[in-house]
């Protein structure tokens, strides 16, 4: 009896253990793997418009939502990602290439060997060679073809000469065989391998893309030739016998919908199941101008996923209804939202004022405008923590109780300011009627009153101008905008250089389309070039530190970026960071498997399944 009881207990314990392992495995992947099966259509509601930056032409497309479609479904690059959540999703893995190469020649040479048996989809349907990768790189270098991030590749020898039309080929790229491509760089570049995982480097067949150059380059977006598991519906009917005969594929209407179906030339044996499972037969992306309608349809099972932002009331519904909780997916967005302070404009040309503002802003209040804690953790520095391997998780140089701002601490910081008469308030005339550019989204409307009220507590009165499309105003230095609440910045790939290079390097200060809104590193000469005025002397620069970190690799590189983050937060103070955004997705009950793609910060379409 006792023995029997022991057996029963043991069996029950084993069963319980097995069950807990199954449950844990299921929850770790964030999905219900038990019922995932192939087939069906994955239907996605897309709010407003596709918003593509170059009409879905991979050479010029710089939109994360598009990258998710390319990387998961349509295009394969030499190296890529496994399209999963968290740190594992930022690890570069082989895709077209058989392995991820280690640099040779003192960190200057990268040699990729392509797998065999990988074909373009219809209508090309032939094996992909190294020349197709070269063609994509040349297309990216040619400014007329609309490339939007060629700056990542100027480290390749001969790139600039080719881009300027002074050379017929890029001398630093060679294709010794159909399956080998070699890149020679001008300087060691620690994150080069990430750059070769970006969608613009995916092979492009010259026989089709040659028809789309110059002014009509981005029309290739209507006929993107697949190298991945899915293709645009109707591509198999596109007649590529001549340029004139190539018509847009039937499955893509830029104003309303995009339908992707299985690519008959895709060979799953050349791919990794860890990277792409390709379960649904079809993906439908449909534009809907009404976000409420999208969420209603997801709730009703008429859509399965969304490319939108759940409003606070949608979040509340999903988080407070036990049966719905699992349908709201929260993932690290690798994006920081911040107030930008212009270092040339009074009173923010004084570091004491910038520090005081960091200490007075109620970051918790600002986060409520985004929907509360679900929107993400409070940002206390520049780069999202996961990208710095959590080295700065506990770093908060402007800590206040509850992250709600502190008048005492802010006044103490303000006391040293030339704009204060020692009472901790910004007293000078320069502190009054300071122009703040805001946008007109719901979150902006929610944040502006808080910022205005908080700034007033230390004597800064803000004159707010709400502008639809505020980026267009603040990215022009000659407008001399002192402060804006609009900016947010997300990674291009999982290296902090994609924050520092673009946001704080003096070389990125441009007359238009500037992203270094604070003008860190501005000199009188640059100020003249971009027509910026105000205090243009004595602006701190972090160019040497950025250059130093860029040459490093591995953990040393990450530590270098973390140290630079601290330096900027304490000695430059160009921002008031307030939110490390989470990406929120609401899915329907039809979805039986779901994951998050950390690379694109979107749904991992490569790993979803529906009933």
């Amino acid at each position, binding site marked *: 009896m006792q023995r029997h009881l022991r057996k029963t207990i043991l069996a029950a314990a084993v069963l319980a253990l097995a069950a807990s392992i199954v449950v844990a495995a299921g929850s770790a992947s964030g999905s219900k793997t038990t019922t995932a099966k192939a087939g069906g259509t994955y239907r996605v509601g897309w709010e407003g418009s596709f918003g593509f930056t170059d009409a879905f032409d991979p050479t010029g497309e710089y939109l994360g939502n598009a990258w998710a479609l390319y990387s998961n479904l349509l295009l394969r690059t030499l190296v890529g990602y496994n399209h999963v959540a968290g740190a594992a999703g930022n690890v570069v893995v082989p895709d077209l290439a058989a392995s991820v190469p280690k640099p040779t020649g003192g960190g200057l040479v990268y040699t990729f060997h392509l797998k065999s048996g990988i074909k373009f989809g219809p209508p090309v349907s032939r094996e992909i060679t190294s020349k197709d990768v070269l063609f994509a790189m040349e297309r990216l270098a040619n400014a007329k073809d609309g490339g939007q991030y060629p700056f990542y590749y100027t480290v390749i020898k001969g790139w600039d000469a080719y881009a300027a039309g002074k050379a017929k080929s890029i001398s630093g790229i060679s294709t010794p065989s159909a399956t080998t491509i070699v890149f020679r760089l001008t300087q060691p570049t620690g994150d080069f391998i990430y750059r070769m995982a970006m969608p613009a480097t995916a092979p492009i067949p010259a026989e089709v893309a040659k028809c789309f150059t110059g002014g009509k380059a981005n029309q290739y977006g209507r006929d993107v030739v697949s190298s991945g598991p899915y293709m645009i519906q109707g591509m198999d009917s596109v007649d590529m016998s001549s340029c004139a005969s190539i018509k847009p594929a039937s499955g893509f209407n830029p104003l309303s919908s995009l339908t992707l179906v299985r690519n008959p030339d895709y060979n799953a044996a050349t791919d990794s199941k860890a990277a792409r499972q390709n379960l649904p037969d079809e993906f439908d992306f449909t534009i809907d101008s009404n976000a409420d309608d999208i969420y209603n349809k997801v709730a009703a099972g008429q859509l399965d996923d969304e490319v939108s932002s759940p409003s606070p*009331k949608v979040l*509340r519904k999903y988080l407070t209804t036990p049966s719905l909780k699992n349908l709201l997916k929260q993932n690290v967005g690798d994006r920081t939202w911040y107030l930008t302070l212009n270092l040339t404009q009074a009173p923010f040309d004084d570091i004491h004022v910038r520090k005081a503002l960091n200490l007075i802003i109620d970051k918790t*209040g600002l986060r409520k*405008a985004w929907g*509360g804690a*679900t929107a993400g953790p409070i940002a206390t520095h520049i780069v999202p923590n996961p990208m710095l391997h959590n080295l700065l998780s506990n770093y908060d140089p402007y800590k206040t109780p509850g992250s709600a701002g502190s008048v005492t601490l802010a006044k103490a910081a303000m006391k040293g300011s030339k704009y204060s008469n020692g009472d901790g308030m910004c007293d000078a005339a320069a502190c009054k009627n300071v122009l703040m550019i805001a946008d007109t989204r719901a979150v902006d409307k929610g944040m*502006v009153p808080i910022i*205005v009220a908080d700034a007033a507590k230390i004597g800064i009165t803000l004159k*707010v101008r709400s502008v639809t499309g505020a980026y267009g105003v603040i990215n022009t230095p000659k407008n001399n905008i002192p402060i804006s609440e609009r900016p947010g910045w997300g990674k291009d790939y999982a290296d902090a250089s994609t924050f520092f290079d673009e946001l704080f390097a003096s070389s990125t200060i441009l007359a238009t389309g500037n992203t270094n809104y604070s003008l860190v590193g501005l000199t009188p000469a640059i100020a003249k070039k971009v027509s910026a005025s105000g205090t243009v002397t004595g602006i701190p620069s972090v160019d040497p530190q950025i250059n130093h970190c860029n040459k490093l690799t591995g953990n040393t590189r990450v530590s270098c970026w973390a140290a630079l983050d601290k330096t900027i937060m304490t000695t430059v103070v160009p921002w008031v960071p307030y939110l490390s955004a989470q990406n929120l997705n609401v899915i329907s009950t039809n979805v039986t498997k779901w994951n998050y793609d950390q690379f694109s910060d979107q749904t991992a379409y490569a790993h979803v399944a529906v009933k």
Partner: protein
Amino acid sequence: MTNPPDFEISAGGAVALPAIAIAQKSPSRLFWERFRQDKAALAGGVVVIVLILIAIGGGPLAERLTGHPQNTTYTDTMTDSFGIPKGPNSTFWFGADAEGRDLFVRTMYGARTSLIVGLLASGIALLIGLVVGLVAGFYGGWIDTALSRSADVILALPQVLIAVGIVAACSISINGCVGGLIQPGMTVVIAVIAFFSWSYIARIVRGYTLSLREKEFVESARALGASNLRIITREILPNLVGPLIVYTTLLIPTNILFEAALSYLGLGVPVTQSSWGSILTDASQLYDVAWWLMVFPGGFLILTTLAFNLLGDGLRDAFDVRSDR
């Protein structure tokens, strides 16, 4: 049986009329006697007066009563953990708005915005319309043709679309429009509304002026050698006062709604300034979880437009502007 006559014929055949006190009534007295019989108009007038008082002192008074400054956000206490506002309670009588501000205080301040926009825009429209209408109607000829067709063009324009365009364009620039003359915010909203409203007044004034300039008293003045300016200002203008008051009163609620519409579209007053239209914009996103955002400012908006309309109707009747009298 018929009623007996209320006068008697004396034996001598002379008719003895009853003693009737004949009192001369001034036009203003006639107006008041007619107006006070119109209870709806009186009620409208009382409401308008109350609204004007609210516009003048309601906001600060509400701040004092509640202790909640209009732009202070109470996100800790008056929004839930998701940032959704909480409803009315003993200290926040109308609940909170989407940013956690006191909706009662914001609604009171909203009255000021609505009335300032309504009154100023209508006042500017009145001035422009009056001048254009008087000049066109009095001088006639090519001046009339030019001015009247201009007014027709304004009337033919798709107002909301163009207003949205103008306000959006002036709000995008840091310095406003027309070299900084039109600043983003309330100024541009007032300018836009006035631009689209003057033509109504101009047409009405022109019509009256065309009729008045042929009247005998104008002929007399002209015969006495009065100048055109004097005839316009001393003979015609006083006769336009009644109709102008009536039509302006009716124009004010239209313009208040116009401002609400612009604010609803996100093109109205700045976000730090309260306006019923902008509160209703917030409400459109949250009405199913925060009814108070729709009910209170919406109620005031309805009450205001109704009161002005009733008052305008009453004034029209009392001033004898209607053609069927």
